[in-house]
């Protein structure tokens, strides 16, 4: 089950590994830049420790046979749902959201692990579905598999984190072969539901719903955030204001410059060049993952890579769009770069899984 360690370097995909290492380093650098002073100082060290833990996890994920994980994906999935249910009832609200388990000085977001387990279970589901057309039973199954954790996280309420489950559903349906009729049906259902909600809900009810999911984010405030973020990005210009010299980030006009808005800090301090560097690294990583998916040994492996890479792709796109107001602010961090121990470690672990599928692409491995 565990391969020989000496063979690991030769068979690892160095493109993905290189992008990952680079992005994690950029992350540490900018967490350091944006938290150099004040209450937040010291976060860069923590982030570096989590990156270290994450790379250890990545190595374990490479060496552990993913097929084993696929086989046990259902119990794993159920196991990771338990803390989500627990949080809903007993969770402590941190910044209005019950998504953290606290133990001593240690915080952990169990939903990040649930995401990996969900990706595994989706992949396991499609391992046996091979006729190129999505059957209704599979459709219902995948809906439930993604829908349950989505709902649990949505109720925390952490809209951003919940949304990152959706690419798993989309990828399952797309690659699983949902026929055109199915897509049309989904679009119609969503449209009718949204429209119905629009017509039947009264204004104050809409207001209540939006305040329920965004308890302390009034319209004015999120408008302020986006505005400051756009100023940060735009004022960076071509080559940026220089590392640690971004006025928007350093003087804290930019909200949460070390977590959700870290990409705006990069854009401000490193300019368009920095943006191209980071987006280029992500694009390379995702495109390379697609290549690896194409040569994976089995359907389970293909879907595992597609799911995990899809989550990363989705997060990057939404996060980068948020910075310049292309999409509303939803609280999705930039994978590998934004400060956040659980997210960084689990993302590294999932990249480890991608590499692991590739590592075992030959039947005899």
């Amino acid at each position, binding site marked *: 089950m565990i391969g020989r360690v000496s063979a690991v370097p030769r068979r690892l995909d160095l493109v993905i590994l290189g992008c990952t290492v680079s992005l994690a380093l950029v992350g540490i650098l900018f967490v350091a830049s944006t938290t150099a002073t004040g209450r937040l100082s010291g976060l860069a060290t923590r982030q570096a420790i989590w990156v270290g833990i994450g790379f250890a996890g990545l190595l374990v994920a490479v060496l552990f046979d993913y097929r084993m994980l696929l086989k046990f994906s259902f119990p794993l999935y159920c196991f990771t749902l338990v803390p989500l249910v627990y949080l809903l009832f007993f969770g402590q609200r941190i910044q209005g959201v019950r998504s953290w388990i606290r133990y001593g000085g240690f915080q952990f977001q169990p939903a990040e692990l649930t995401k990996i387990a969900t990706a595994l279970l989706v992949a396991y589901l499609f391992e046996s579905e091979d006729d190129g057309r999505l059957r209704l039973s599979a459709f219902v199954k995948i809906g439930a598999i993604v829908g349950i954790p989505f709902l649990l996280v949505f109720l925390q309420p952490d809209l951003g984190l919940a949304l990152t489950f959706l690419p798993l559903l989309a990828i399952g349906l*797309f690659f699983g072969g949902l026929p055109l009729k199915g897509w049309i049906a989904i679009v119609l259902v969503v449209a009718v539901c949204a429209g119905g909600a629009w017509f039947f809900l009264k204004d104050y009810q809409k207001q209540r719903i939006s305040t329920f999911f965004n308890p302390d984010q009034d319209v004015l*405030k999120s408008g302020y955030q986006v505005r400051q973020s756009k*100023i940060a990005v735009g004022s960076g210009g071509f080559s940026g204001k220089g590392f640690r010299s971004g*006025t928007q980030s350093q003087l804290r006009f930019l909200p949460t410059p070390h977590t959700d808005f870290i990409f705006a800090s990069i854009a401000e301090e490193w300019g368009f060049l920095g943006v191209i560097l980071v987006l280029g690294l992500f694009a390379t990583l995702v495109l390379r993952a697609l290549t690896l998916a194409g040569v994976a040994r089995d359907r389970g492996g293909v879907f595992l890579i597609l799911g995990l890479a899809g989550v990363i792709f989705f997060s990057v*796109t939404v996060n980068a769009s948020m910075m310049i107001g292309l999409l509303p602010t939803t609280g999705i961090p930039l994978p590998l770069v934004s400060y956040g121990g659980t997210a960084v470690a689990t993302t590294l672990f999932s990249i480890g899984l991608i590499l692991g599928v590739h590592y075992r692409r030959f039947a005899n491995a």
Partner: protein
Amino acid sequence: MLKVRENRAALNRKIEASRVIVGVVFAVLATSYWYTQIVRGDYYFTQSENNRIRSVRINAPRGYVLDRNGKILVDNEPAYTLYLYRREARNLPSSIDLASLVLKVPRDQIKARVERGLRDPEFLPITIGENLGIDEVAAIEAHAFEHPEFAITVSQRRLYTRGPAAAHVLGYLSEASLDQIKSAENGYKLGDWIGQKGIEGAYEGLLAGVNGERRVIVDSHGREMAEERRVEARPGQNLFVTLDLGLQEIAEEYFKDKVGSAVAIDPRTGEILTLVSSPAYDPNWFTRRVSAKEWGELLGDSNHPLQNRAIQNMFSPGSTFKVFLAYGALAQGLVNPEETVFCPGYATYYGRTFHCHKKGGHGVVNLRNAIKYSCDTYFYALGHKLGIDGIAKIARSFGFGSPTGVDLPYEKSGLVPSEAWAIEKRKARWYPSETISVAIGQGPVLVTPLQQVRALAGLLEDGKLPTPHLFLASQEPHSGKRLRYKSETHPGLEIDPAKLAIIKNGMWAVLNEPGGTAYGSRIPGGEGGGKTGTTQVIGKETTIRAGADRKKLQDHAWFVGFAPIENPEIVVCIFVENGGHGNLAAAPLAKLLFAKKFGRPLDMPESPRQQRASAPVAPEKPAAVPAGRIATAGAPR
């Protein structure tokens, strides 16, 4: 293995398709960033500069106000303001608790202030309390570690060191009104303090100085990180006013339980040595932000404490008017100073009986004694001779009916009636019988206390009416350079010294001869002269019957005076509303002022009341034969 790959042809086509999707999405993102950073880069760069650089005003310290001897009247003191930065607040309720505890303000009030502040953008601090004491500042600072959300700034607050003393001279500060913001050149903003009334209002430009500016780099909390540029403020000029605090305090003390006003000037220059208006207010109220209730009380006070009675209250001058008419008539040659009138206690004109204030009559009086005794009968005759327009001409030549030009805002100009005035304003002919009343300073003639001192100073100073003023000198606080006021006068009547001497003698007699109407207020050494006056409260009897406040129906008391007799250095006018007779209510202050000014002892052999009882009533030089037309005019029926 092969089988697996073949079955995956469809899957691989989709993977290829998704490569395109991924590529397009990243291209769109890169283009969007290119647009934001390269195309719109300059715009956003300006925005970020506006964010981080804030222009902070350096308030120019306001100049001090000092009396003529350098005693400080208006000072500045530090005032502390407590702010809350909401982003720093870890636990807002506990912040509110602390502020409520330290400021001793109910929790609900603090909470309301915080909630009002929550509507503002997050980076703006919320004002929790103003005018904190140093002990409150210390209490907040002691909790700085647990409560980093609190910030304290220090600013200068105006301090009127002697409270209500000279309030009407000094004026006060209040927040600039919208009109003032629009009209002023110094760039006032909402919430800025600006001088109102008094010296503060009149010399706002000198006192305020010129504000400076700091361009500072701030963080999103508005906290200063560094200073980029600094233009220092130019402090306001220190202002010396003409007041003599020693005299002012005596006058304030005298008016503590009275309503009215007193003015003393130097007749040679017009420098105002004393100016009291009572009741007064404490100008410090305004700088501590008056509550609506306090405002209501101040405005609702029937005695109108905000009014400066010395320049804004117009009353009939009563018998003090006789001095000016006497000189005017004398100068025109209308009367011979030795001509006498017989006063039986009344006179009849136009079928109406006019009473002298002395029921039994003064007997035979000449001009000098008519002043000394304030004989109404004599002046009825004089007025009858002058006619209303003759009276008006004399009154105007002493500056009545026009503002004195004092350096205080909102001065009233009084009223000198004439035939033309009656037709224009009253739409009715002037009744000749009214002239008789005006001759003894009653009726529609209206003057302010400040006009009275100017008129008397003009009479004493060769007809030159000095412009009363409070500005003595201003001083540049750094260089010490001084700017002095240049005294100015208005030409009035030309004065004949021999004729003036007769009037002065009569006024001397008022104070210093037994039987003079203010004999009780003489000072040892026999300095000074004066004239009492009484203004009747109109409609007295009817209102008494209507049950009005008896005190409000008493006559108003006047006294005008000067000292010394030769080369006078001080001219005073004292007006006590509802004070009764000028002798008892107003003249004693003149005595106190003269005594202080010339360093005379105050000890008098007898109290004024005893004095009056024992004073001989008969004129010292009775004229045997009534002569001339005046005598006939005043003859008993």
